[in-house]
């Protein structure tokens, strides 16, 4: 048994994270009205990634997990980054 791994997160922690996620949703809607074009897309993706990071680390408990799992998470993310990066190199500079 590895009961020590099962950290019980308090409600208040989750509610704080939820409030931040709501604020970031408002921010991304506001930003989309202010910045346009490529900067607009990059801003939207950046804010989405901050939100995703919060969901992953708090709601999905990644920050409480052992290092192996946290490392493993970067394998599919890095794979995806390489696939997207190389595809764009091909699309833009062919």
């Amino acid at each position, binding site marked *: 048994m*590895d009961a020590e791994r099962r950290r*019980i997160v308090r409600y208040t922690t989750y*509610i704080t994270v939820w409030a931040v996620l709501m604020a970031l*949703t408002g921010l991304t*809607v506001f930003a989309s009205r202010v910045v346009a074009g490529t900067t607009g*897309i990059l801003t939207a993706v950046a804010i989405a990634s901050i939100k995703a990071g919060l969901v992953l680390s708090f*709601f*999905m408990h990644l920050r409480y997990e052992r290092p192996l799992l946290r490392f*493993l998470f970067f394998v599919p993310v890095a794979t995806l980054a390489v696939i997207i990066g190389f595809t*764009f190199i091909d699309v833009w500079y062919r």
Partner: protein
Amino acid sequence: MKSAGVSALHRDYTGAKLGMWLFLFTEILLFGGLFLLYSVYRSLQPAEFHRAAAGLSLTAGIANTVILITSSLTMAMAVSAFLRGAQGHTLLLQAFTVLFGIVFLVNKYLEWGDKIRQGLYPEGPGLSGLAPGEVLFYGLYYVMTGLHGLHVLFGIMLIAVLWLLTIQGKVTSRDPARLENAGLYWHFVDLVWIYLFPLFYLVT
């Protein structure tokens, strides 16, 4: 609890958790492929995507974002309540999660229904006057939000089944992996929507 000789049910908590994450990794790549498709075509036809995206309802998008993030909160709290042994709390919070999920799908149904009434479906009259890039945008919209919607539907069923099992006492806090894994799945669904929302509704 169990006397020696009686085969105790072996539970591998770490293994169950790792297995769920490995499954989610394949899901990241599944949706990742679609995001790749979206981003390449968007970079090739920015003006068409821009015009087509203006046709989506921002209000519906924001409403669904709020609903899904809130449902993630209730699910995370349900797992905490469960680990603490607060049976009533966990059942109530799971029920709220299922309810929010259903509201999300109803919202999606109304949204799709609205688009279909405008003739925006394959071979539909609404698409015939549009540029190829705009048709592509709606194709990606249906496929990506549709696949995401199927995940929401599956997540609702998963949590509903666990809700029944919790009432029957078949899921106990000595074996939390199933509920935690259902939670992970639900948060993943939320995660995908966090990217879908700005890419379809905001970047116009």
